[in-house]
């Protein structure tokens, strides 16, 4: 809480932009014109924001199917992302990836991933490069609680610990993997202890409390940058919506959904806390909200207007040079 004013504003701005981006997606999706599924991050914004606040472009992240928040927090351009989700030539991946495959290596975003858990080894690789090339970079793998039962994740935890790689595993514990409660298919309730048993510090944190996320990440990144190896953070925060936009969540109680919105909204919690502590003014916060919504509206308008990829794009980017 002793963060400087501009950090406080920056954190708020990032969280708000993620929320606004996805609320815009919900609206646009209702209007029609967005193809494929949208896995929304609403409710978990504090995690990506608090983690990525410590990362520079030289630091890498690898992300998940629920990855819009990670991308925005890592500094990816909302307009390019929106265009990508609309499948436009102007999209960050030229329309070839879509919502589930947004990447921007220049910002250190090595890609969202449609195969759960598969991004963990990739993050090891970025950490290995950083270590080998002496860049002092770190890398972060965001991993869902359901995905945390994938072999790829466990193997990566062991290898990162064994090699003392500068990696941070962030497990986002929203309680579900698709329609199934994660605890129903997981042998332990303590994912942090499980990660710790691989030989690294690990900590359970409240993922709706951005200060908790911010502080824990700071320590973890320091640990990594000083050559001490990986850390795991298990951050709990609810998914407001379903597995994908449109999922009616028949498997989830109304009270659980209500509680998420009423009591676990990381944005509301932040706002209240900041205002109560008198750290920022309501109008500063509101102006940021306003700006974010208008930015996202503009991004969507642009995306709708943009052209789809030219047919020739089908056959480019398979190899560096066409065979």
């Amino acid at each position: 809480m002793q963060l400087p004013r501009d950090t406080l504003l920056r954190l708020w701005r990032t969280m708000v932009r993620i929320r606004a981006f996805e609320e815009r997606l919900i609206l646009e999706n209702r209007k029609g014109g967005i193809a494929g599924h949208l896995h929304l991050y609403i409710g978990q914004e504090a995690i990506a924001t608090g983690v990525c606040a410590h990362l520079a472009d030289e630091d890498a992240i690898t992300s998940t199917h629920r990855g819009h928040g990670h991308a925005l927090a890592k500094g990816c351009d909302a307009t390019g992302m929106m265009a990508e989700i609309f499948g436009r030539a102007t999209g960050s991946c030229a329309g070839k990836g879509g919502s589930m495959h947004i990447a921007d290596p220049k910002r250190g975003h090595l890609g969202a991933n449609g195969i759960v858990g598969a991004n963990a080894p990739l993050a090891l690789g970025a950490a290995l490069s950083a270590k080998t090339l002496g860049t002092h970079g770190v890398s972060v793998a965001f991993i869902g609680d359901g995905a945390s039962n994938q072999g790829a994740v466990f193997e990566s935890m062991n290898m990162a610990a064994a090699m003392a790689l500068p990696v941070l595993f962030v497990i986002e514990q929203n309680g579900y993997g698709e329609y199934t409660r994660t605890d129903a298919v997981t042998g332990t309730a303590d994912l942090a202890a499980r990660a710790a048993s691989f030989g690294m510090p690990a900590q359970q944190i409240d993922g709706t409390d951005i200060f908790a996320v911010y502080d824990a990440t700071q320590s973890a990144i320091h640990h990594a940058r000083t050559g001490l190896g990986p850390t795991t953070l298990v951050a709990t925060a609810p998914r407001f919506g379903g597995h994908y936009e449109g999922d009616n969540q028949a498997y989830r109680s109304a009270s659980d959904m209500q509680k998420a919105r009423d009591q676990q909204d990381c944005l509301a919690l932040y706002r209240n806390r900041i205002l109560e502590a008198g750290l920022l003014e309501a109008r500063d916060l509101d102006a940021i909200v306003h700006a974010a919504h208008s930015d996202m509206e503009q991004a969507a308008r642009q995306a709708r207007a943009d052209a789809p990829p030219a047919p020739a794009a089908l056959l480019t980017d398979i190899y560096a040079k066409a065979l």
Partner: protein
Amino acid sequence: MRIKSYSEALRDALDQEMARDPRVIIMGEDVRPGVMGVTQGLYDTYGPTRVIDTPISETAFIGAAIGAAMTGLRPVVELMFCDFAGVCFDQILNQAAKLRYMTGGQISLPLVIRTTMGAGERAAAQHSQSLHHLFTAIPGLKIVVPATAEDAAGLLLTAIRDPDPVIFFENKMLYDSQMSVSDPAIALPFGKAHLLREGDDLTIVALSRMVGFARTACDELAQKGISADLIDPRTTQPLDEAAILGSLHKTGHLLVVDEGSARCGMAADIASLAASKGFHSLKAPVQMLTPPQTPIPFAPELEDAWLPSSGDIEKAAYTLLQKV
């Protein structure tokens, strides 16, 4: 007969076999709620010992299904997307496919892995693949690629009753397609192709969703006075070579249409059959119609261009015959 979707027909076939044989169990991610549709409602009937939600750990649960099949159960396991076979490929390649042989026939594996294939859902490169050729290349497996609701149900019964591991590829773009189907389902044999159209000018062999597209193309071709045999092998292993070669003997022209890989895929496999055992029947080059050899793009315009259409099939047939 009753009107059912491909998805309902599959569900009913599962229900039918679970009712008939208490050793049949279902496992997979979200199979209780039935995220993919097909297993919906079965939990209510068969309960937690026979409809088992698993962790997101395909290696563990597909391996567990293999182990269970060795020891008295008949598991039907759901791999949501065949694209995910990457994370559990060893259990299929080196365990399920080889255990009978490596143990000198001591082990039987009555196992079905149901999975989905097919592009068109705007699900991009990691959720749209058709990987049946990768499995057809592995000795020890049987591979099913049903194109209609009737075939899906009938072949699923056979798959469940089969003593060998079966990879059952459901085309997710067909799930909602409706037709009148046998009720209850009637088991269909493996290795027996389905002749959907009869004709003299060319032989079209098509698989999975391409069968329906080829049917449309045949109707169009008929308008132009071109008649074709349309053959759906229904299983790629065993493959009904006789049906293909017999038709080719009659028509002299072969067009193979498949949604899988252009390289080392089913189109090449069937073309090579023609080039070896059917060579003396061939009057023109074999035409292979597949998507271009690229990952599957997200943008709808690109994905549509990527996937062969009925128009593409028609054109390929026409080109093939012009070439005579």
